[in-house]
C-alpha cells in the first residue's frame, strides 16, 4: 500500500530549530502542514501534491496559544480557528472583526483543525482571517534559517498562494497591537448560497478609530476582489479626519468599489462583486462606527 497521497516522508519536528532545519533542507519539495485542511483536499483525483515529497508537521511546536504579552495579542500560528472564534480575549469592539472572521470561516468541523497560520500561508485571495489582520495592523513573525523576522501584514501577501515567506521560513506568530482607543471593527462575508462551506464572493473588514467625534484612523480591507487580500487606501483616506455622516461613508464605500479589481468566475460576475464591495463596505463601516468605544 502506498498511501492516498504520494509522499516520501512525514516529519514531526519537536522544536522550531528542528522544523526550520528540515524545511530548509528540502526547500521546494517540502511543505509545512498543521491542520491539513488546505493541503489534503487539493487536486481531487490527482493523488499528489505538486512537487511535494516531504511534509513538515508543526503540531508539536506549541504554537497553539492566544495570549497578551508586551502590549500585543500574540497568536500562535498553529492555533485552530475555532479557538480564535471562542477566545474571550477577542470579545471587545476593537477585535470583533477577528472573532467574526473566525466564525465565518468554513464550518465548525473544519475549524476544529484549520489553523490561522494555514489560512494566511495558503494566501488565497479570499482568506477570511487575512482581512481582520490587515485592519488591525498585525505583524507576522516568521522563523527561518537566519533567525526571526517580522513582516507587516500589509506586505505579507504577494500573489495567489504566494507570500513574503522566504525559502525555509515558517510562520510562527501573529501579533496584534493592543488597542486603547475608541476603536470599532467589523467583518462581513457574502457567499453564493449563504451556506457555511462556501467561500466568499466578497469579504470585507473595517476598523474605525474616533477622536472628538472625528475619524482619527480608518482601515478598509477587501478580499476575493483582487489577486491578494488588500487595503483600499484611497477609500481610507476619504475617512481620515472626517466627521461621520451617511454621505462620507457612502463616498468611502464607492471609492473602495473602484479600488477593487474583481473577476468573473463560477461564483459571480465581476460587476456583481464590485457592487457588493460597495454594499459590504458601507455596512461594515456603519457597524464599526456603532461599536466605537462600546
Amino acid at each position, binding site marked *: 500500500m502506498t498511501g492516498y497521497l504520494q509522499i516520501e516522508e512525514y516529519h514531526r519536528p519537536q522544536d522550531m530549530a528542528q522544523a526550520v532545519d528540515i524545511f530548509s533542507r528540502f526547500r521546494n519539495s517540502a511543505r509545512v502542514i498543521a491542520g491539513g485542511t488546505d493541503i489534503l*483536499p487539493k487536486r*481531487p483525483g490527482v493523488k499528489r501534491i505538486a512537487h511535494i515529497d516531504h511534509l513538515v508537521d508543526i503540531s508539536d511546536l506549541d504554537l497553539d496559544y492566544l495570549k497578551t504579552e508586551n502590549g500585543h495579542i500574540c497568536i500562535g500560528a498553529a492555533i485552530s480557528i475555532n479557538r480564535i472564534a471562542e477566545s474571550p480575549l477577542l470579545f471587545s469592539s476593537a477585535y470583533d472583526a477577528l472573532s467574526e472572521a473566525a466564525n465565518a470561516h*468554513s464550518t465548525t*468541523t473544519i475549524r476544529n483543525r484549520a489553523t490561522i497560520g494555514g489560512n494566511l500561508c495558503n494566501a488565497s485571495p479570499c482568506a477570511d482571517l487575512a482581512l481582520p489582520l490587515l485592519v488591525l495592523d498585525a505583524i507576522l513573525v516568521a522563523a527561518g534559517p537566519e533567525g526571526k523576522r517580522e513582516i507587516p501584514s500589509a506586505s505579507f501577501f504577494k500573489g495567489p498562494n504566494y507570500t513574503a515567506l522566504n525559502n525555509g521560513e515558517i510562520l510562527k506568530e501573529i501579533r496584534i497591537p493592543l488597542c486603547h482607543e475608541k476603536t470599532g471593527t467589523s467583518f462581513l462575508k457574502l457567499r453564493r448560497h449563504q451556506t457555511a462551506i462556501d467561500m466568499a464572493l466578497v469579504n470585507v473588514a473595517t476598523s474605525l478609530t474616533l477622536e472628538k467625534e472625528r475619524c482619527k484612523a480608518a482601515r478598509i480591507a477587501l478580499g476575493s476582489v483582487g489577486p491578494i487580500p488588500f487595503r483600499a487606501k484611497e477609500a481610507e483616506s476619504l475617512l481620515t479626519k472626517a466627521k461621520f455622516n451617511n454621505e462620507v461613508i457612502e463616498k468611502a464605500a464607492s471609492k473602495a468599489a473602484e479600488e477593487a479589481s474583481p473577476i468573473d468566475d463560477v461564483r459571480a460576475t465581476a460587476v456583481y462583486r464590485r457592487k457588493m464591495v460597495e454594499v459590504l463596505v458601507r455596512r461594515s463601516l456603519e457597524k464599526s462606527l456603532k461599536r466605537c468605544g462600546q
Partner: protein
Amino acid sequence: MKKVPIKIKVNGDWRELAVSPGDRLIDILRDQLDLTGTKEGCGEGECGTCTVNLDGKAVLSCLILAAQADGCTILTIEGLQKGSKLHPLQKAFVSEAAVQCGYCTPGMIMAAKPLIENEPEINDSKIRQHLSNNLCRCTGYDQPVKAVLKASRERKENNDV
C-alpha cells in the same frame, strides 16, 4: 517512502500501526482496522460523511493524515454502542426516521455528539449551524435536526453518556 509508526486509541483500544506518510485517517480506519462504518464521500472536506471524533472534537477523517493522529483518541460510529445498548443519538436517528440510505448517518451522528455533550442550551439553529458540514441527499435535514434535539433531551433527562 518511509513508514510512520503510530499509536492511536480507537474506540477504547490502543492500536499500534505502521502507516504510509500519505495515508489519511479514513484510509487506516477503513482499510487497516476494518472500521467501515466511517464512509468516504467527497474526500475534500465538503460533505462531512467521514466525520469522526478526535480527542472529543468532530473532525473530518479525510483531511487528517493518519500520522498526524499519533497519540490521539479516536471515536468512530462503531464505538458509540455499549453492548446491545444504542447511544441516544443512534436511537433518535432511528425513531425520528432520520436515516434513509444511511450513507451520511455516521458522519451526522459523530458531528452531533460533541455538540450535545458540550452545549447546554441546544436549539434548532445551533444544530443546523453545527451540522452545516454534513450533506444528506435523501431525507433533507428536518429529521436529523429533530433526532439530535431528541437525543440531547434524552441525554439530559437520563444523565446519559
